[in-house]
Every structure is written in structure tokens, then in C-alpha cells.
């Protein structure tokens, strides 16, 4: 397939001073639904912001459908981006928010009104269109951002954690919307930190960790790889208010082989052959009020840890 029909990322790196955002990313993304999956802070949003030209790569080049990201006048007729930012122009209603930015595409008012109505209908916000966004729930704000990103019918849609905050029914409707858009031959690039959330709807998955693309491919192959590494021990960290007590509870589990308390007394590392069960225990203890958890995640940074982490996320009760 020609480069001019794809998203092409060539040897792209982004550094924030000395801090790595993403490094040496080479990707060619074809039409369909592609999921960019990785833990929080892995570089997903950085990569998406680079695609949208909101960040400039330290090195490398990006082209979208053959267009450079430095030409907004061409790019943004074909490109829609739903960012992670939960912020909106002050005082705007849902309708005004979508409609006013459509006018900046040079559409006449009738066409802009028609597209606004269509976008609001697609995300199920027709009834709330004339309410101020400030009064919307988290899920509604997520959907109005999505409506704004798709309203001008872009060929490439980049959606940063678009399923965050959606209730199960709306989530199912939104996933169906993604399928419709991809079925129309469009690029839909979705990020998530939960593999399970997106693997069923994706044509392909890109795994990212610590700024590096650690794997990419079609979903069945990816799942097989994930299954292969499931049985390997995984090092997990937990930051919580009662690490000693949690260590005691962890040692009662036969699959926990090693526990090490953090020097500052605010957490622990442990090694387990069945992280799923350990995470279930943590969830139960949190639910019972036994411990307050600030953060939990894989302590290893290799591919295996990323897979394991993503699989845990998948199986954790949400």
C-alpha cells in the first residue's frame, strides 16, 4: 500500500530536555482501527501529540496521508484529534463547541449546522447539546470531545483514551461508532492503557513502554505472545499506606516468592508467579478498607512486564 494512504512515522524521537518522551519510533499505520497500548507515562500521548503537530519531534519525520504535519491548512481537513485534555472554551455549550470550530474549516453555517447535528447524534448528545459543557458528566465531556474531533468527517482520527469515563452502554456504542468509521475506510488510532479494552475492536495493536515501541502486530498474534509470557514471574510494585501489613498478607499467597519493602516505608516490591491473583487480593483489600493504594504497576521495564501489566489490567475488576 502506498505511503500516501498511511500514517508514516520515520525514526521519530521526542525529548523534553533530558527526559525521554518517545525514542526511535518507526511505524506505518494502515486504515482501520489501530490501538496504541501502554502503561500510563509510556509515551502514548506524546506520540499522538506529535502526530497532531502539537509537539515537534526532536528528530525524525511524520507524514499523514502523504501530508506533513507542519501544514495545518491541509492536514486538519483530513485529521481529527480527541486529546487527553479535559478542558473546553469557557462557557461553551456542546453545540457551540462543535459548531464554532467547524466554522473555522470555512464551512457555511448551514453545512456547519448539519455536521454539528450529525456529530452530536453519533455520540448520543443531541438532548444535551444546548447545555453548558461545564455541567456535563465526565462521560459526556469525553463524548463531546469525540464529536468535535469527528465532526468534519476526517479520514484520520486520533483518539487519546477515548473510552475513559464512559459507562458500559455508552462504551459499547462508542466502540460501534469506531467500527463504523473504520468500516468507511478511515484510520482510527486509539490509545489505551488497558489492552483488554481495545484488543477486541482493533485490527492491530502497538505496544509502547517507556517511550519505545516494544511490539506491534495484528491482534491474534499479539494475544498469543501475551499468553506465552503469562507464566513467567513478574515483579510488581505497590505504593500504599500499610506496606508491612500488605507484605504479610502477600506472603500468605503461595505464588509470591519475594517481598521487599521500600526504604521510605511507603510501598513494596514483590515477585509473583500469578500477578492476577495478587492484584485481585489488592483490590479486595482496598474494597474492605484494609489498605489505601496510591499506585500499583509492573516494576520491570521489559516487554514481558508490559504484557503482564496489560494482561493484569485486563483481568482486574474495574
Amino acid at each position: 500500500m502506498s505511503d500516501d494512504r498511511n500514517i508514516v512515522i520515520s525514526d521519530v524521537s521526542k525529548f523534553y530536555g533530558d527526559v525521554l518522551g518517545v525514542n526511535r519510533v518507526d511505524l506505518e499505520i494502515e486504515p482501520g482501527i489501530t490501538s496504541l497500548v501502554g502503561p500510563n507515562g509510556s509515551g502514548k500521548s506524546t506520540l499522538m501529540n506529535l502526530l497532531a503537530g502539537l509537539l515537534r519531534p526532536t528528530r525524525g519525520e511524520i507524514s499523514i496521508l502523504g501530508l506533513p504535519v507542519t501544514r495545518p491548512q491541509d492536514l486538519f481537513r483530513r485529521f481529527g484529534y480527541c486529546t487527553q485534555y479535559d478542558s473546553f472554551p469557557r462557557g461553551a455549550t456542546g453545540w457551540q463547541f462543535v459548531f464554532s470550530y467547524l466554522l473555522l474549516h470555512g464551512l457555511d453555517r448551514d453545512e456547519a449546522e448539519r455536521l454539528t447535528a450529525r456529530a452530536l447524534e453519533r455520540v448520543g448528545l443531541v438532548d444535551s447539546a444546548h447545555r453548558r459543557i461545564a455541567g456535563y458528566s465526565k462521560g459526556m465531556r469525553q463524548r463531546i470531545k469525540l464529536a468535535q474531533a469527528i465532526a468534519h468527517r476526517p479520514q484520520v482520527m486520533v483518539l487519546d483514551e477515548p473510552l475513559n469515563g464512559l459507562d458500559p452502554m455508552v462504551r459499547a456504542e462508542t466502540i460501534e461508532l469506531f467500527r463504523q468509521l473504520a468500516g468507511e475506510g478511515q484510520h482510527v488510532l486509539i490509545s489505551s492503557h488497558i489492552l483488554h479494552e481495545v484488543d477486541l475492536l482493533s485490527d492491530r495493536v502497538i505496544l509502547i513502554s517507556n517511550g519505545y515501541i516494544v511490539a506491534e502486530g495484528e491482534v491474534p498474534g499479539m494475544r498469543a505472545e501475551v499468553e506465552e509470557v503469562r507464566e513467567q514471574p513478574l515483579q510488581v510494585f505497590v505504593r500504599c499506606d500499610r506496606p508491612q501489613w500488605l507484605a504479610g498478607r502477600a506472603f500468605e499467597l503461595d505464588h509470591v516468592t519475594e517481598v521487599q519493602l521500600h526504604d521510605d516505608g511507603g510501598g513494596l516490591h514483590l515477585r509473583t508467579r500469578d500477578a492476577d491473583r495478587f492484584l485481585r487480593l489488592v483490590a479486595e483489600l482496598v474494597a474492605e478498607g484494609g489498605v489505601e493504594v496510591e499506585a500499583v504497576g509492573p516494576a520491570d521495564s521489559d516487554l514481558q512486564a508490559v504484557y503482564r501489566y496489560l494482561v493484569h489490567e485486563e483481568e482486574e475488576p474495574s
Partner: protein
Amino acid sequence: MTVAQETAARPRLDWALLARQVGGLVRLELRRLLLTRRAVILGLASAVPVAIVLLVGSIPIGGQTVLERFGNRIVYETIFETVFLGAILFFGCLYVFFNLFRGEILERSLHYLLLTPLRRELVVAAKYAAAVAAVAVLFMASTVFSYMLIYLPVGFSGAIEDLTAGPGGRHLVAYLGVTLLACIGYGSLFTLVGMVFRNPIIPAGALYVWEMLHFLLPPALKKLSVIHYLKGLLPVPLSDGPFAVVVEPPPAAVSVLGLLAFAAVVLAVTALIIRRMEIRYTED
């Protein structure tokens, strides 16, 4: 045909489309400026000169109002130069133009604009034009109302006579021109300041001191202040006091063209900055 080929085949500039896009952004910005709390604050600020002229024109002290005692032109020039030009216009422009981009960065909504198919330079131009229009309408209305109040002692017929047959009409046009040019000059400066600085206090404070003490500056440095050119256009010359370094005011054409050129250069610098700008709200 691929998108890239289709784009390459299109004419480089579609003026009608550009006009619709820029018009859309100007209207959006005007709504933000005139239909929000910002407009109330600006409206109150622009009412201050009107209130002051009303006071000095209606309250008698020792049997005469201030307007009658010192002459309406001198009193108005003093109020315009010290209160309006010296404070209201400066700080009004600071309030609006500093927040033109900085406000959207703080609200974390600037990316929506940068994700539209408009060149970033045009985003700067359209937002600036809308802000100049909004601020100029309010402040020019204030200039007209406050100027009309100087005719309180002579009544309606006296006002008409001075405006049509006397120098009143010419003076009013000069005050309106200075108001507009102040909005253009200070507006461009504060748009740039808002792009570069997160907090306006230090740069605005330094600029204010520079502008207000311009009369003490040597002739070469005077040329680097906006107010030097604005004052040269005022119709009634006032003394800057015994310590002032007196220089001949620049010709009106130099003042007008100089301020317009200054604004264009400052906006070009702002456009260069926004072209290279990255959206990283966490740093702001």
C-alpha cells in the same frame, strides 16, 4: 488520486475559503471578548474617563466648574493624556491582549484552535484583529462620550457649532485616532508579551514605567516608546514639566505609519513564536 496528490493539485490560495475561516475565528473571538465577564470589566474601565469629565463638568467649585475655570480643551487633554492614555488604555489593552493566547493556554483550550485547518500565523492575525475591534469599539465610544461632555458649559448648540465650524471636530478625530492607534500598538505588544511570559506583572510593570517616564528619556530612546508617537498626535500640546527632555514631536504621518509598522513587526515575531509553539500545558 491520493490525498497528497489532490492537495498538491489544488490552488495554493483559496481566498474565499480563507476569508470564511478567518471571519469564523474573528466572530468566535469577538463573542469571547464581548459576551463574557471580560467585557464588563472593560466597559467599566472605559466608563472612567466619562465619569471624570462628567464630574469636572458638573460640580461647581467656587461658583465655577473645573471645565469653566481652566478651559474645556485643556481639561479634556489633561484627562485624556493622564487618565485615558496613561492608564485606562494601557491596562485595558494589557488585560485583553495579554490573555489573547495566555488565557487559552491557562484554560487549556488553545489546542482546539491549533487543530483547525488555519495557518498559525492567521490564527494570530485573526485573534488580534478581533481584539483590536472589540477594544477599539469600547474605548472609542468612551472617547466620544467623554469628549461630548466637555460641552456641558456651552450646551447643545455650542457643541454643534464647535464641532462643525470650530476646532472641536478635528480634535475629536485626533483623539479617536490616538485611541485606535494605542489599541493597535499596545495590543500587538501585549499579545507578544502574553506569548512569552506566564505572568504579566514584571514585563507590564517595566513597560509601564518606560512609557510613563518617556519624557525623561534622551531623544533617541524616546523613539522606542509607543506613547511618544501617540502624544505627537494629540491636538492640544501640554507641558511634560520642568524635567522633561523636550523634543519636536514626530510628523503625524511618521507617527501613524511608524506605529502601524511597529505593530506589524511585533505581530510577525508573535507569529514566528506560535509557529514553533508546542502544546505542553503542564509547563504553564
